[in-house]
């Protein structure tokens, strides 16, 4: 399956989930599919979108939170699986787009390319609801169950690597605007206070 096809299926089943995207391919493809500003698109801290999403999930325990991670990012912060398991947030779903290359920089092969068992790592870390899905039909079939199950859950999406550099363009805003668009979107949707009376 292609990353864009997987994102289309996820977007259709997203429901009320707030989405945090790892920088690069996951963020660009999710933006291309949804143009949603109640999603946070990481622009840095590679590896730590999962931790950001965990903090958000713990702060909003009744709101579904998804993290759209990528294999390169996961490998930069494998310890996040231990922390997720330790906290066991019922509202957190962790998806990993696994194309076995660093796509953003020209499809450079990943560390331990193709041999890593991320599902095994997640299970060993203490996340029993973990699986890999490698085709679109299986994703369409299994996603409703995944959405309905309690978190934390961990789903590897085995997708095709594209050739060359990432071609899907990034979202059309960045940095501080990302902060305020995302925060204000959550305030409107959830009735929470992110920013104080003077706007910071």
């Amino acid at each position: 399956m292609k990353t864009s096809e997987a994102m289309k299926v996820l977007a259709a089943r997203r429901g009320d989930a707030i989405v945090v995207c790892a920088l690069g391919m996951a963020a660009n493809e999710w933006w291309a599919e949804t143009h949603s500003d109640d999603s946070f698109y990481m622009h840095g801290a590679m590896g730590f979108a999962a931790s950001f999403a965990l903090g958000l999930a713990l702060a909003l325990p009744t709101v579904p939170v998804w993290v759209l991670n990528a294999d390169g990012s996961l490998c930069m912060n494998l310890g996040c699986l231990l922390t997720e398991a330790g906290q066991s947030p019922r509202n957190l779903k962790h998806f990993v787009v696994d194309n076995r290359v660093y796509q953003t920089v020209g499809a450079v092969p990943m560390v331990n390319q193709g041999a890593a068992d991320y599902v095994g790592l997640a299970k060993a870390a203490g996340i029993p609801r973990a699986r890999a899905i490698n085709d679109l039909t299986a994703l369409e079939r299994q996603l409703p169950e995944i959405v309905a199950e309690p978190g934390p859950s961990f789903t590897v999406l085995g997708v095709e690597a594209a050739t060359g550099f990432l071609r899907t363009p990034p979202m059309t805003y960045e940095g501080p605007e990302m902060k305020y668009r995302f925060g204000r979107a959550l305030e409107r949707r959830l009735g929470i206070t992110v920013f104080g009376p003077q706007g910071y």
Partner: protein
Amino acid sequence: MDVDARIHEELTQKCGVRLAATLPDDWVAPLIRRMGADPDVRHVPVAREAEAIAICSGAFFGGVRSVAVIGATGLLTCTGEMATLNLRHQIPVFCVVSMRGSIDDQRIYQEVQGRLTIPLLQTYGFLYHVFDRPEDLASIPDAYETCRLQKRPFIAFLTRRLVKGAHA
């Protein structure tokens, strides 16, 4: 009231902190235990300090006030993430950190931290304040508010004299 109890009280009662992401060194371990024992605080032990930074950043968007409690060596491991996440997106993150490598902390494995931590923070433009005496702790709420207003990392350093006592 001991120093750790005071810091805990300032953070939770005055600043409204409800989530603490932590990784200990020996100076901040008692504070971490105290935060972990508070039923009103979600305690998140992490495996690497940058996780604590990102967790606090995510909690910010959920409207929850948080603190990262880490050691000075851990702080050095995550300044890149603080720059590319917190400076990049202007997300405040308040960190309580042991001020290792001071003249009264004669541990060979802290000597680099002692020389380079402050210049590094200044280079990044991260804010910091040194808490050296128990009477300084009343400024923690002002430091917390400054962190939010300045929209960037703020390091509240705890000195050896503060956490261990003047004659330790």
